[in-house]
């Protein structure tokens, strides 16, 4: 099964006809991004934005007839700014396969674990042809650790977080993993966290661990996120602490631009 185009098993997808285009586009994107600023030296008030190219891991984003053009099926943008002891996040996720575009806004405490604070909001828009066109899901965390979600004035409970757990969001992991890199690498059992996936799905038993380092052409240090209800995802940091590649089960995010 060895393949000359292989970069790493966790992110180098080359299913069928897209081989070797996936690796080419991934490397091309990686080479193109600017990496002058180290995210860990961010100053108060500064805004940092990472823009990721979304590559489909399978079947050209489920349009097998579409054999021309780039593989990219969308863009994910993670923007955050620090305001005193608070991090404000704004995430935009646009996917031309699902047609659902998300704008996610949340706040985190200024801790390496980026614990979620007070309330958050997910605005979803469907660009497909069907009845569902848009939706706002507003959420908050109660003092008892209960996650509440509200859609169209109807509220549900989406689980309870143990008081001892650090609850963060998958979109904050772009900063959590760089901040905890040393801790993760030296821990035998990884770092245990709770994740509110896309601010809606609570994964209370999640674990961050480390993989090896590789040279893609740039040096990347690998990490993973595992847990109950989670498909494994793999996170690769460059020498500046920027999350350069995230390979989830179905797609690969590749850093193409850093602003700030």
């Amino acid at each position: 099964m060895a393949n000359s185009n292989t970069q790493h098993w966790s992110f180098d997808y080359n299913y069928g006809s897209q081989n070797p285009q996936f690796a080419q586009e991934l490397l091309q994107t990686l080479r193109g991004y600017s990496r002058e600023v180290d995210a860990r030296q961010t100053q108060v008030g500064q805004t940092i934005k990472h823009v990721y190219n979304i590559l489909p891991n399978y079947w050209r984003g489920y349009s097998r007839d579409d054999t021309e053009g780039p593989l990219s099926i969308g863009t994910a943008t993670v923007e955050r700014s620090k305001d005193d002891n608070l991090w404000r996040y704004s995430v935009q996720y646009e996917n031309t396969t699902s047609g659902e575009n998300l704008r996610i806004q949340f706040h985190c405490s200024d801790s390496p674990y980026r614990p979620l604070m007070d309330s958050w909001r997910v605005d979803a828009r469907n660009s497909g042809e069907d009845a569902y066109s848009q939706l706002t899901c507003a959420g908050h965390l109660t003092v008892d650790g209960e996650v509440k979600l509200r859609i169209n004035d109807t509220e549900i409970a989406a689980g309870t977080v143990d008081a001892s757990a650090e609850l963060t969001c998958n979109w904050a992991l772009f900063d959590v993993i760089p901040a905890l890199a040393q801790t993760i690498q030296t821990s035998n059992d990884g770092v245990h966290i709770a994740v509110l996936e896309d601010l809606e799905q609570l994964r209370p038993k999640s674990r961050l661990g480390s993989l090896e380092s590789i040279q893609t052409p740039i040096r990347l240090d690998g990490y993973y996120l595992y847990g109950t209800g989670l498909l494994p995802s793999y996170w690769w940091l460059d020498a500046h602490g920027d999350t350069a590649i995230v390979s989830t089960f179905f797609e690969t995010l590749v850093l193409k631009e850093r602003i700030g």
Partner: protein
Amino acid sequence: MSKRPNILFINTDQHSWDALSAHGNPYLHTPNIDEIHRNGTSFRQSFCTDPVCAAARSSWATGLYTSETGVPFNGGYLHSEIPDLGQVLSVNGYNVFHCGKWHVPGRNVRESFQTLYYGKRDIGAGGAAYYDSASTHAVADFLTNYNDDEPFYLQIGYVDPHDVCEYLHNHEEKWIPNPLEQGTVSEDDLPPLPENFDYDAQETVLHRVCRRVDDALIHAAILKGVRDWDEFHWRYLRWNYYRFIEKVDAEIGRVMAFLRATGLHENTLIIFSADHGEACGSHQMFQKFTLYEESVRVPFIVACFGDGIAVEKDRFDEAHFVSGVDLFPTVCDYADVSVPEQVQGMSVRPLAEGREVPWRDYAYIESNYWGRAIVTEQYKYVTEYKPKEVEDFSPPGPDAEQLGLAQLFDRQNDPRETENLVGNATYSEVVKECRDKMLAQEAKLHRQQITHPSPKRVISNWGERLRTYWEHSR
């Protein structure tokens, strides 16, 4: 007459019957589907009509077996004159909605249902990671806005755990180390190899040609990849499969929460099932397309979270054989709608209410156009039709003269199907009884000739390969 109920049919994809906590599986956590079970009756002898997506779904849509629908495999086309459930309900006063995966080729879902969400690129076989969360959003939006006087029928087609297929595709062209070498999990985290990891060397020719030989007709590239696997790769496949199920369970949990929060749960019937199962290492096999238990046996739960609909709660029904053809008449029964004459299935409503009614004593299953199985309380009989010398594109059967190889398993004493009893003279009479039962069932079917050129090509190509194998094995 009391107000007719809303009906919510939630289906997952490639979900084996025992891959639920409620069924005693210790390797995954499915609190939300378990909650549906606690509010309803789970039919433990529930079988798909055909272990592949499009075929099984054509039975859900029509109440017919797949040799009748025109969709005997994924590349089939539903015969245009067969009414589907959406059409039947909508002319009888129901508002009918679809969300998520449909996968019934030949029938435009948007013409039979109002679609809440069907993807930007129409949902095909897989892609749960893209579609399932959006489907939940669409359903939450629907439930929190529904205020029509007429009842609704809503079917939600979740794609997971079908994405386990993509996990497997990922192994086609590259070597992925086992998880212990990856350093991501420990051996203790992994489920054990299945007890029936070995497989029967006397499987049908159809199964060998479709799934075992080097140039297998179905997903040969995956087969090539998994041949290099060690024990931990197989166990990690199972580990991943259970994570996919946990993921879709969480989606279902949000739908259930919104159903309750809106108060709609009082008068909403919930049916939960899956189109087919997943081999997940049993018989050294992956995916579906086989007539083994893991591939054909699926969950089927009828429930209500409120008191508005009479359903026996927190109960396993071990006795009654339920089939994918039963969805259509069950929904019609609850909806108080007449069932089209040709429908083969039976309403499980009386069973869910705890009433005894005359019922079939077997399940009948088809596979890959030529494959057949009969499941009884004691035995499972698997066989195949040999391809015709000159293909006429009429699905085969009933024809005892055309039958090929067979397998017989004692379900009570060998539930994992490890010992093929066909060659054992002690069981010759059992084999005959099973065969006769199968042929009698087939005599009741209304098969139609396949006319669409695309499935005809598949039948021609596959038939040629099968004929060649038979000739070489003489």
